[in-house]
């Protein structure tokens, strides 16, 4: 019985912490982020299982976590507000070639981060070649280039 509330507590606490930490934390996994995740997993495991090493407890813990995840996704589907709360919303970072610096600062990003994605996705060289840059809920930056700018196109 105890495994279910333990798993539920972990399921609620960890995402809440990551949501509070903000998107930048999981935007691009560096080697250190990867190690940090391993340590978090290790620290959580004990609280989840206690001193019980049985297959039953492991199965109950995993089943509870997956069931909660399914329940949460069903709830998110029905309640838009919940989805915004949990996953976040996209944010425009560059509009018509103009970087919106205050937003970038709040999202802990800078122009270099945007240009890095612009180069990788479209081979862009300058900020004014970007029509829109959007920080997506998952932490990725999507780039919409100006017409005529970018890889394989004439001009720019």
């Amino acid at each position: 019985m105890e495994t279910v509330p333990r798993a539920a507590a972990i399921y609620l606490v960890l995402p809440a912490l990551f949501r509070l930490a903000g998107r930048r934390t999981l935007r691009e996994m560096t080697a250190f982020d990867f190690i940090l995740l391993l340590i978090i997993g290790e620290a959580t495991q004990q609280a989840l299982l206690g001193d019980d090493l049985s297959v039953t407890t492991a199965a109950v813990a995993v089943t509870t976590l997956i069931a909660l995840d399914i329940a949460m996704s069903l709830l998110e589907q029905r309640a838009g507000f919940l989805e915004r709360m949990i996953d976040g919303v996209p944010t425009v970072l560059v509009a018509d070639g103009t970087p919106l610096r205050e937003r970038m600062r709040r999202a802990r990003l800078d122009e270099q981060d945007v240009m890095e994605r612009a180069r990788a996705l479209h081979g862009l060289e300058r900020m004014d070649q970007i029509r829109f840059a959007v920080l997506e809920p998952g932490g990725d930056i999507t780039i919409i280039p100006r017409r005529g700018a970018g890889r394989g196109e004439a001009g720019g």
Partner: protein
Amino acid sequence: MTPLPADAPADIRRIEDRLPFQRRTWRIQRIGWAAMALVVLAALSGATGRGGPLAEAETVTPDGALRIRYERMQRLGAPTLLRLEARAGAANRDGAIELRLDPAFLRDWRLRPGVPVPEAAAAGPDGLRLRFRAAPGAARVAVMLELMPERAFLVARPAIALGDGPPARPLILVWP
């Protein structure tokens, strides 16, 4: 004022419409960071146990016969030590001391015999009585018991006494 150009596509406009929500999220995140810093500071001060000035405590029975060192902040399932020290002359005529522990210790904790092992233990309505033999002429008799909390969110003041003397009531909190 929106920074979007007049010909911005509908999708981008919809994203921009949700900016107030994102601004609230940023504000809440800043509050969350401050809360995380407070949690770390509280943990360093011992509020969550395992060392730190708030975690460890000491109390004495009103008659001064028994000194008790204990962990004020305990955690569910984590073993903790209860160190008891009876003052000189506390032993009775046959050279034994008797400790009286609150019934709560049997209900909310798992009790393991520490060092030394009691020569007799008896459970009664007033709790658990443990008898230890004191070395002849010993100035003080020290006893160590191992406890493991079995109830989370517990705030307890269990009685601990020497024999039939007045009890000390250490304040103990158990975190989940």
